């Protein structure tokens, strides 16, 4: 039985910061889900704020590296999806407030 939870994975990913906006990916609402199976393999489902993001591959690598730092973690798969498309309503209130979207 795996003791790693979805929250553990989100906490690990929250160390990854978008250098353009200065917020971490979790508070931006870019991480849609993290599925952990009984062998501690993790499937992260995420999106990006724009489809033309030149940091696309780098950000997914950072997510993978952040999750890898969790003790006893198994295989990690990071999937980028475009549906549903990201919008500001998915971000935390502090992000909206700082960006002036509230």
């Amino acid at each position: 039985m795996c003791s790693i939870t979805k929250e553990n994975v989100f906490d690990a990913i929250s160390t990854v910061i978008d250098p353009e906006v200065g917020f971490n990916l979790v508070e931006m609402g870019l991480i849609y889900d993290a599925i952990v199976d009984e062998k501690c393999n993790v499937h992260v489902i995420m999106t990006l704020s724009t489809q033309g993001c030149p940091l696309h591959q780098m950000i997914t690598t950072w997510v993978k590296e952040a999750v890898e730092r969790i003790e006893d973690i198994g295989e990690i798969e990071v999937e980028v999806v475009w549906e549903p498309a990201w919008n500001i309503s998915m971000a935390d209130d502090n992000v909206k407030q700082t960006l002036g979207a509230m």
Partner: protein
Amino acid sequence: MKAISSDFAPPLKLISPFFSAGVVFYLLSMVALLFFEPTFIYQQMDVAGWIHLFMLGFVMMIIFGAMAQLVPVVLEAGHAVVDVYYVIFPLLLTGASLMVIGFWVVPQILPYGGLLVLVAMIIFATENIATLKKTTISTLTIKTVAWSNGYLLLGILTGFAIALGFSGQLNINISLMLKAHVYAVIGGYVVLTIIGLSLILIPMFSLAHGFKEDAIQKAFKLVVTGVAIVFIGAIFSQEWLMYVGYAINTIGVLFYIWQIYIIAKLTVRKELDVWAKSMIFAFGTFIFAIILGIIYLLSAKESILHASVWFLLLGFISSMITGHLYKIVPFLVWFERFAPLVGKEKVPMLHEMYSKEGASMMFNFTVAGVVLGGFGLLFESDILFKAGASFLLTGAIFLFIGMRKMLAYGK
């Protein structure tokens, strides 16, 4: 899932010379403005020299550097032969310099400068077309890259014909060829490129989402058609046809501005950084330039045309470029020097890589310079024009210092 290839980014050492040289040419253009009077005709050799210093040295140089980085992002495919940019840079640098010297001092060297620029642009356009063939997607931005490169080739061919005409080696109607050349380069290449890249960059930096692209699709079709009609009208000396083209183009750019308004309404990021302020100023001056252009067509008063072109070049095009430099250059430097350190040590945010005060000074002096200089041209006031040129030069010095600091950050 739509795959995005973003590991095709060319190295900073390939792109940074374009940006460094472009900013130096911008600075030189502003120095040169101090020696001009607000009354002139476009056929003057010194005016043609300034236009080429600004358009080739600054605008084209920066666009070429930016395209080296952005084409793979837009096309989601790697460059066909990215190393050609190492050849394009010295050719464009030398060609543009020779052309300016040719216009100002030694007309005999104009064809040689023109030839170097021609070769640089043929290599650039050919490489872009070869890269276009690698992509499997079809977006509006990709269509603009394809069409703008076609117009670039037409523009440079007509320009080279003019250079041969000036030096007496080709017997052509220089005045008509000049109109075809200007329209192909500015309308066909620069404006189409800006339209295409705006659709990627402006929503990306402003975090705007969920907008329809109907208006910009119409803008693209109208501008492509309008430029073709003006070009054909100029080549075949059919002035009525050129007016039809002007009208179609005007409607096209109005659709483009409408699209930007739609995107601006959905902007999530309300912070007015130097990029956001530059965009507001760029589109404000663009609208003003269009209004002046329409008044000129009705009044035929030359000073109104001069002011319209001024606001288009130094207001719209210049601000679009300088505003984006404060986004693109920190990103390129960060990508090269700090991206590998993420997760290992603290890395800077992009906005920390330039002085906000310096950027504000650049923007404020530039705005004052564009407005004063533009009204100097409109009212044919030497003192207003010179004041504008002085402010622009001060803004250019701040841009030059800012660029040097950004490129040196973390070295």
